[in-house]
Structure formats: C-alpha cells, structure tokens
C-alpha cells in the first residue's frame, strides 16, 4: 500500500548567528537531520520527543510550511519540494495543520466565521451563502453552536478555540492533518474532549494524522504507530503496542520509564537507578558526536561516540537506530 506521505533524507538546518560582536558567524541548528518517515493513508502516526527534538519542525516540513535544507517529500504521488508556488498552493488544500497554542493560532481581529472561511477564500471560493453554509457545517462538526460565528476568539475558552482551529483546518476536507501538540495547552478534562473529537473526525472524514505530542499516554491512545525523535533524528518507530510493550531504543525506554505512575503502588523511585536518565538534553546547536543520545545513554559503548547508528529493522514494522541492536 502506497503511503500518503513519504520523506527521505529530510533535513532542516536553521542558521543561528553567534560569536558575539567581533566574531559574528552563523552555525547551523540541526533541527531535523537526515530523517526518513512514512505515513500510511488513514493512519495516525504519533511523533514524540522532548524539547529540541525537531518534531514540530518535521511536522511543518511535511506540509511544506517551511522549505527543507535537503531531502524530498512525496505527498499523494507528487514531490512537494519540487512544485512551483501555484502547484503547491493546489496541494495545500489536502494538507493542513492544527497548532498547539489556541490563543496564538487565531487572529483576534477576525470573527469565527471569518477564521473558518479564510481557507475557502484563499482557494478561490467567494464569501457567499454556500461558503457560510460550509462554515456552519464545520462548526457543527466540531461541536460548537452555529450562533458563535459572529463572536471573536477572546470570548472562548482554550478548548473552544482549539475546536475553532480544528474547524479551520478541516473546512477544505484535507487528506492529511498535522496535529502539532493540539492538546498540550489544555486542562486534562478538555484534552480528553478534543482527543475524542479528533478521533471521531478522523473516522467521519477519512483523515490521516501526524500527531505530535510529548504526552506519551495521549499519543498511545490516539496513534496506530509511533515514532520517537531525539535531537533531530528519529530513533525508533513501531506500532504502538510494540513500542510501549517492547521499546528497544534506550531513549524510548527512558521516556516510558519517566512517565509518572498511574497509581501510587507503581511509584517509580524504586526503578530510579535502572532507568532514570541523567543530565540535560544537549543543544541542537552542538549535538553530540556519533549517536546523539550517547551522552545520556546508560548503555553507551565506544562506537556510540564515534559513529551514528544506522536505522535497522529488527522485526517487521519496527525500526530502530542504535548500535546495541543490529
């Protein structure tokens, strides 16, 4: 089955100015480095990792919100890194994004109707009764009453604003939606509402999701497969049950071990010595040599400091980049 999105050699470096006044020069911030990723039609691929791992950048690259430094991205049969602006715009109908910050993602000076209608107008529709009908249909789909169309973002709670953001992302009936930490800024009870909504909409509209998050529990719930990123690299990918039951990469193991207990009887301090990660996440400006995880890895070997591990596939559908394996 051909994947909906397939990217290889995907790299994004941001040039960062440094050196103070006298020795000003730029060094690359390797946000995403030589990443291969594939998302199947209809699935939800979860993408987890901590600060600076590049997951948001990867999400934006896949829908060409930012241009890659290298690599290609095949979306629905076409390499979107090679399209001209007109062709890209046409493709944009099929790929959309929901952002993390419900307060920053909506223009405070646009009414709800204007916000949700904007994508339609950008793609050639007129601001007529048909468009208004489509906006009303989206509002209903995301669980907001039609009468809110004339209100402004500041009149809504975080969860409601996120619903508006979802309506905006889906009004063009895209095929692929990047959900960039869509629930991280919300209270837990509201998180559950929005997660349920995203799942329902996926079924009703036949959507494919890239679900970016740092909350492993939410990712496990909504995803089919999960990819783990660390400092610009994907270190492990597997279907969710396998990843959580049998994580192979030491970083994945540490992430899972770091999740707070679900019950006081599972207090993890007794597990502390074995699986706790020491130290801080290195800077993406100066990533460690060889395997980027080696500075925190409890199983580090000499080769890890020198050579980047290749991605291997120890079992069908389970990829991992680690010298301990393969």
């Amino acid at each position: 089955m051909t994947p909906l999105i397939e990217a290889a050699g995907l790299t994004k470096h941001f040039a960062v100015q440094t050196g103070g006044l006298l020795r000003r020069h730029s060094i690359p911030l390797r946000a995403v480095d030589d990443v291969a990723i594939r998302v199947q039609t209809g699935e939800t691929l979860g993408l987890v990792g901590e600060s600076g791992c590049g997951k948001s950048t990867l999400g934006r690259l896949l829908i060409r919100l930012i241009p890659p430094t290298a690599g290609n991205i095949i979306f629905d049969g076409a390499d979107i890194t090679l399209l001209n602006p007109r062709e890209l715009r046409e493709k944009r109908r099929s790929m959309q994004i929901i952002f993390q910050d419900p307060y920053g993602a909506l223009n405070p000076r646009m009414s709800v109707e204007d916000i949700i209608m904007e994508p339609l107008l950008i793609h050639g529709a007129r601001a007529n009764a048909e468009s208004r009908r489509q906006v009303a249909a989206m509002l209903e789909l995301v669980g907001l009453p039609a009468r809110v169309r004339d209100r402004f973002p500041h009149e809504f709670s975080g969860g409601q604003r996120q619903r508006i953001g979802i309506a905006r992302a889906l009004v063009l009936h895209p095929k692929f939606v990047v959900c960039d930490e869509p629930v991280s800024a919300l209270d837990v009870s509201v998180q559950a509402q929005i997660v349920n909504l995203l799942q329902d909409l996926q079924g009703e509209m036949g959507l494919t999701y890239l679900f970016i998050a740092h909350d492993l529990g939410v990712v496990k719930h909504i995803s089919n497969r999960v990819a783990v990123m660390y400092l610009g690299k994907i270190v492990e990918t597997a279907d969710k049950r396998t990843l959580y039951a049998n994580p192979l990469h030491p970083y994945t193991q540490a992430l899972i071990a770091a999740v707070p207990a679900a019950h006081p009887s599972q207090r993890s301090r007794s597990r502390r010595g074995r699986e706790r990660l020491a130290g801080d996440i290195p800077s993406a400006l100066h990533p460690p040599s060889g395997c980027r995880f080696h500075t925190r890895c409890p199983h580090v070997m000499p080769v890890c400091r020198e050579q980047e591990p290749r991605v291997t596939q120890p079992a069908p559908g389970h990829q991992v980049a680690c010298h301990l394996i393969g």
Partner: protein
Amino acid sequence: MPLLEVSNLTTAFQTSRGEITAVEDVSFSLNEGEILGIVGESGSGKSVTALTIMGLLPQPPARVAAGEVRFGSDVLTRLSDTRMQRIRGPGIAMVFQEPMTSLNPVFTIGEQVMETLRAHERLSQKAVYARALEMLEKVGIPSAARRMGDYPHQLSGGQRQRVMLAIALACRPRLLIADEPTTALDVTIQAQILDLMMDLRDEFGMAIIVITHNMGVVAETADRVLVMYAGRIVEEAPVARLFDKPLHPYTRGLLECVPSLDQDHERLVAIPGTLPDPARRPAGCRYVSRCRYAIPACTAAIPPLATYDANHTAACIRVPELT
C-alpha cells in the same frame, strides 16, 4: 499539633465585576514531614490557596474574607508583612511553575541563593557563599562552583527548577510549597525533579504541599490528596484510597479522562463542559453542570464535606448511593 492548619479559609478578589471568591471555606491540616497533594484544574483555587498561606497576595485586591492559617503557633493570616517575612524562608518556602519567570534574569544564580540566605540567616559572607554552593550541589547542578556565576538564561529549564529548589531549601524550611513544579518541563526532566524533591524531603524532613493538575505527579509523591473544584475542596483522602475508590464525581472524572500507558481505551471518558464562571456560580453544587449524576437536589445547596471512611471525605450528596 499539626505543622500547618488551614481553617475555613476564604480568599476573595476585588474585580471590575465585583468581588470574586477564588478560595472558599477551605480547611485542611498538614503534619511534619507529610506530603499533601492538591489537585484540580486551572481555576480551582489551588494556587491562590498556596499564595494565601505564603502571604504573597497583594491586599487589595485580594483579601482573606474568612478563616485563618495557622503555622505552628503563629496565625499567618493575622501577621504583619515584616513578621511574615521571617516565616518565609526558614518556615515556609515556595517553588513556582515557570522557573524562567521566577528567577531574576539580571542576577547570577549564586547571587539569588545567597540573597535568600542573607535575608533570613545571620551568617558571615564566607558562610553564605559556602551554603549557597552546598545547596546548588545538593540539587544536582553539575560544576556548581563554576555555575554560581551563571545567569538564569544560561541554564536549561530543568536546571532552573533545581535552582528554584536550592533557593527554597537554603534556609531549611519546615514546609515547602511546590506549585506545579514540573509542568513546564520535559518528561525525563520532570522525573528527575520529582526524584530530587523526594530525596531532599528524605534528607531535610520538610513537609511538602504539591500543587498539580497531573494525577501522575500525585501518585508519585503524595501521602494524602485534596481535590479542589471551583474554589472548594470536593474530596480528601490518603493517596492510595483516592486512586482505588474515588468518591466525588469530579475526582472520578479526573482519573478517567487521562489515558494511561498500561490500558487501552476506545474513547477517553471526557468531562463535558468547563468550570463555571467564578462571578456566576450556581447556588448549589458547583460541579452540577458537568456531572453525569446530577439530580435536582444537587442545586439546592453546596454539599458539605462528609466523612465516608478513615480520613476519606467527599462533598457530594449522592456518594452513599453511587458507591
């Protein structure tokens, strides 16, 4: 005698829409060395409770409308700011959620730890420096001596939170209040900070109030838990009991809506709706608009906290028939 005793505390704020009660009729006590978790979503009143205890709310617009806070033999709510200053530091200390905004960006971290020591203890310059260095080492700052001269922006989020803990514990307080201490941190760093807090508790023996919206943090750290909703306490229990047998529908909702790693769910059980507007709260139970068990009697009056078992209280009139 308990270390901290909060009795019928009500804190209100003067706003453009009239006076709003952020904390209402809150009572609890804490013994030496105990860890109390206060859990609830944003707007539940947990932070305001902590700030009232610390005397950190500017009055006006805030005021303690009723009740009192006792710490040892002092009634904090009646103390002057000068006297309260002497309690903050060696008596009660606090760490906050956003370490970047809680640390002064123009002073070195060493200076900020030393400032606390100078404010609350009588020590020589050398002793102040030595204690500050010792604290930074205790909280796990690598190369602490060199980093005494670093500024907050040179540290990572996790390191800044460690510095916050160093400042809070420099004067060996008897009570530490940690307000969402790990919320802004990455999960592997969260785990380090929670471990560190527990290690420091083992070493210094202080009591801790952990304020969080994350039930996992409570599961990891607390001995007892208070659940707050819309300014009031809705449930209190020893931690294992709270997880095993939550009585209040809100507590049950909180526990059910979080997907755990070891279970599969078709759909998450979400709590519908949102917190009521604090200026327009219902006369009866405040949870009524979101509660799947609500009946007309729930709107009549605010349900009192009733005791159901050893140390387990809940404020819901339907508990006996629902559990």
